[in-house]
């Protein structure tokens, strides 16, 4: 049994979990430590309210809101300045902290392991269990260390690191282990980059990903609203310094990757493991089903594949630094004719900060739509999507069949590659633009 320190709900499943708990005559044991956001199906078009393009979507929002209020949870509602994607909002408010256990009925909860927390995604029943009892019953996970040694090449991002890992070791490679990301190329990353790396641990079939807390973590957290203050801060940091793995610690499994070997990556198929470097091609032995769905041929170079749409956002790559790097490539340029392009900030706070820097104007001048924050078109819930059969280059995490809409072909990549591809009208190496 593990004590659970923080719980997040969202409107996609919040009403089901809270409704089921209530129907069983059970209460939330400590509502002060349960938070709820509106992110999954909330509309992202400017001027939004509870209305969504998803048929019946409004009920998910209103029922979750009512249930969250009734249970006394902290709710970041549709129009709240703190609204945003759960894994963007929680770190930016300091709700997740090193050494905490945090769960949410969302597979990308592993994102928050970037702060040295044990954070993992669970189902609705487990969320109920945690709310009712303050605990979860889990088997102790096996451990794995993924060590990125050396230094990343210029123009290579944490998105490329995680895609390279999954491409080499498979979408099942994490085998349910708790994965620690370590090595010089990881400790060199800033906090937002670390979140991108940990975000896709679930695409590796890991239970979670985490990074040892260090000075980068503490400096980033200090002063955030829910982070400890004053004397508590000093005590907390002293405790956090005891958390990192011992030098020479052993793990059930270890993987070492030379960061210098990684180039910008892009997905070609319908699993994140079907990804290659931008200088590469669709593999000779690519599966027929994936090729047919994606409308590609074996041996076809990935650079130059024409695209219809581009998406920047999500819990993987919707933070301020992601938007800055994409905007820098877009500045003074326009997206190719006929390409539909959107930027959806990961949180309302990211949106405000981006607007204060003028990033919104850079995106819009280049031809991107500029949206309100949310999960948006990372997945298709029945509402908004891309044109039928569109080929989308996307800074999201999943390229599954139908993930972004029926027949939509998703190429996952870094925000830089999405920006460069939107300009070129085809999958393109962002390093060539940056030169």
């Amino acid at each position, binding site marked *: *049994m593990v*004590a659970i320190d923080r719980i997040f709900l969202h409107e*996609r*499943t919040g009403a*089901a979990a809270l*409704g*089921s708990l209530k129907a*069983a005559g059970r*209460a*939330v*044991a*400590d*509502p*002060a*430590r349960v938070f709820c956001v509106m992110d999954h199906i909330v509309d992202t078009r400017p001027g939004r309210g509870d209305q969504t393009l*998803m048929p*019946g979507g409004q*009920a*998910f929002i209103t029922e*979750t809101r009512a249930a969250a209020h009734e249970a006394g949870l902290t709710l970041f509602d549709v129009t709240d300045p703190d609204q945003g994607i759960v894994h963007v909002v929680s770190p930016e408010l300091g709700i997740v*902290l090193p*050494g*905490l256990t945090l769960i949410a*009925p*969302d*597979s990308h909860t592993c994102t928050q392991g970037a702060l040295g927390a044990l954070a993992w*995604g669970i*189902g*609705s*029943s*487990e969320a109920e*269990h945690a709310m*009712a*009892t*303050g*605990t979860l*019953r889990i088997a102790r996970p096996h451990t794995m260390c993924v060590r990125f040694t050396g230094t990343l090449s210029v123009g290579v991002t944490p998105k490329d690191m995680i895609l390279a890992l999954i491409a080499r070791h498979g*979408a*099942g490679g994490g*085998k*349910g282990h708790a994965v620690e990301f370590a090595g010089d190329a990881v400790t060199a990353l800033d906090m937002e980059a670390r979140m991108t790396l940990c975000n896709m641990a*679930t695409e590796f*079939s890991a239970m979670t990903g985490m990074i040892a807390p260090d000075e980068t973590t503490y400096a980033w957290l200090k002063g955030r609203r*829910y*982070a*400890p203050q004053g004397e508590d*801060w000093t*005590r*907390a940091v002293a405790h956090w310094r005891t958390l990192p793995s011992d030098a020479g610690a052993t793990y059930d499994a270890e993987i070492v990757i030379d960061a210098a070997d990684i180039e910008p990556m892009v997905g070609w198929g319908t*699993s994140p493991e079907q990804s290659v470097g931008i200088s590469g091609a669709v593999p000779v032995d690519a599966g027929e*089903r994936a090729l047919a769905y994606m409308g590609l041929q074996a041996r076809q170079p990935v650079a130059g594949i024409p695209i219809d749409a581009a998406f920047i956002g999500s819990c993987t790559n919707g933070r301020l630094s992601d938007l800055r790097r994409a905007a820098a490539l877009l500045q003074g340029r326009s997206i190719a004719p006929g390409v539909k392009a959107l930027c959806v900030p990961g949180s309302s706070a990211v949106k405000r900060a981006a607007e204060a820097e003028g990033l919104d104007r850079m995106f819009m001048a280049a031809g991107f739509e500029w949206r309100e924050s949310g999960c948006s078109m990372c*997945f*298709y819930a*029945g509402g908004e999507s891309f044109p039928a059969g569109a080929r989308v280059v996307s800074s999201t995490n*999943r390229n*599954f*069949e*139908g993930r972004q809409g*029926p*027949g939509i072909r998703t190429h996952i990549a870094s925000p830089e590659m999405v920006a460069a591809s939107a300009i070129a009208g085809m999958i393109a190496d962002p390093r060539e633009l940056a030169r």
Partner: protein
Amino acid sequence: MTPFTRLTAIAAPLLRDNIDTDAIIPSREMKSTGKTGLADGLFAAWRYLKAGGRDPDPAFILNQPYYADAHILLGGSNFGCGSSREHAVWALAEYGISAVIAPSFAPIFAGNCTRNGIVPAPVPATAIAEIAADGGPVTVDLPSQTVSLADGRSWPFEIGGEAKAMLLEGLDAIDLTFKHKADIAAFQAADRMARPWVYFGDIIG
């Protein structure tokens, strides 16, 4: 939760690796804010001819008459990867699937199965191939942790002790945990002294 002991049934083969929960139930099919009414949306993108439609695609395995009574699925490795949506498991259970046999499972999906009376039985890919080739009824026996065929071929599978007990007895995990309420309260009182920053205000429950 309905207890599970032993099941002999036809197993429908979906022998692809990385079958994700978006495929098991597309997000657009999660139309209800509750846990029911989901079986219709099971494998919707593969099962029906058109997105959002309900005309069955005769090529899809569960639409073939032989598999109409399938209560077991045979899958590829990393079965149930992707989104944590428990709707995937609710849809399987409502449809009538009580066991999934695959070389490996995504961790969240496996956890969701055992909370809903579905046995996730991991056996090697070679065994999956033999079972699929046999095509006859398959027995999943939870007490002995085996998957077997009518001719006696049998394969052991691993399942956590607690998951097994909960499936066998149809136990409610929350009730089980409530038996330790005093221990949990004692832990939290001590933890509150050691890590005061973890708590906000007073515990109500």
